[in-house]
């Protein structure tokens, strides 16, 4: 007798995660090195702390900073989600993914508030 696995069909999910993971990776590859460059120049005293603050205050840098934090949060969330889907059993999988989502969301909101409330 042939056994038939119950096929629940497709959840029509996964494509957006896969796509966002790649888009956010490109944004991170472009923007993340600048964080280290800036910290390094401050450490070497090529840039004073005051000058760094002034730089972070400019609109263009605030926008880039926002983009960086959004890409970082999305990328980290999807990465953790993929790992949870890979290795965690179904019972606590959804709960764990929800906790990660809330945690990453709070982190992003807190950081974005720092970016946009700075100096004003």
């Amino acid at each position, binding site marked *: 007798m*042939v*056994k*038939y*696995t119950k*096929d629940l*069909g*497709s*959840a*029509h*999910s*996964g*494509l957006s*995660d*896969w*796509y966002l993971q790649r888009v956010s990776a490109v944004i991170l590859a472009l923007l993340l090195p600048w964080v280290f460059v800036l910290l390094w120049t401050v450490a070497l005293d090529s840039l004073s702390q005051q000058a760094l603050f002034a730089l972070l205050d400019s609109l263009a840098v605030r926008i880039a900073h926002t983009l960086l934090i959004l890409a970082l949060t999305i990328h980290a969330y999807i990465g953790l989600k*993929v790992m949870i*889907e*890979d*290795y965690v059993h179904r019972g606590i999988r959804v709960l764990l993914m929800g906790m990660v989502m809330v945690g990453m969301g709070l982190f992003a909101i807190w950081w974005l508030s720092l970016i946009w409330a700075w100096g004003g």
Partner: protein
Amino acid sequence: MTIQLNIYRFNPENDSKPYMQHYEVAMSKKGMKLLDALNDIKWNLDGTLTFRRSCGEGVCGSDGMNINGVNGLACITPVEGLKQPIQLRPLPSMNVIRDLVVDTTHFFDQYRQIKPWLQAYTPTPEHERLQSPEERAELDGAYECIMCGCCTTSCPSWWWNGDRFMGPAVLLQADRWLKDSRDEAAGERLDQLEDAFKLYRCHQIMNCMEACPKELNPTKAINHIKRMLLNRQS
């Protein structure tokens, strides 16, 4: 010259646990294949050793097994070049029926889920549905698959989530039907595959390509399906 083999033995009717059994057979001819050594054991030394084989030339896909830690077909693997004693185990992550024989029910059930047959809705032409040589060439790298299961059972994503992840062999076949110029069900096929578990569990570690005895590249096929889904959305 003798060949040393350590072979996984398990008969659920008598054994409480699997064990490895040592065998020695003579290197009977140059270019001898691993299946020749197994046949020698089965016919001359120990008739209880159980394994699947049929065509003996890499076409039927029956004798997939784990050879020194790598999945492959015994019938086309030369004994020469294998580190001895040769460690032979059943394909990983499948239930063992006996010795090297595994239960492939779920594997072929997943194959059935992708409807591996031509689906066309336009009226049947008077003769056959024709394909140009170029359209036929699109199927190169996919039609050669013999469904031996070497790739799928070497995939960690299938080990962890095999109940839902289709695995490389089945996804290579899914892509084969998506690429077939005569098939008219591409939309439904993509609908059926767009799923975080069925398709996107593939993280491209390429164990499948390493294992494939026919030197096919299932990872490439899976990426092609992902690109088709992206193109459909954007």
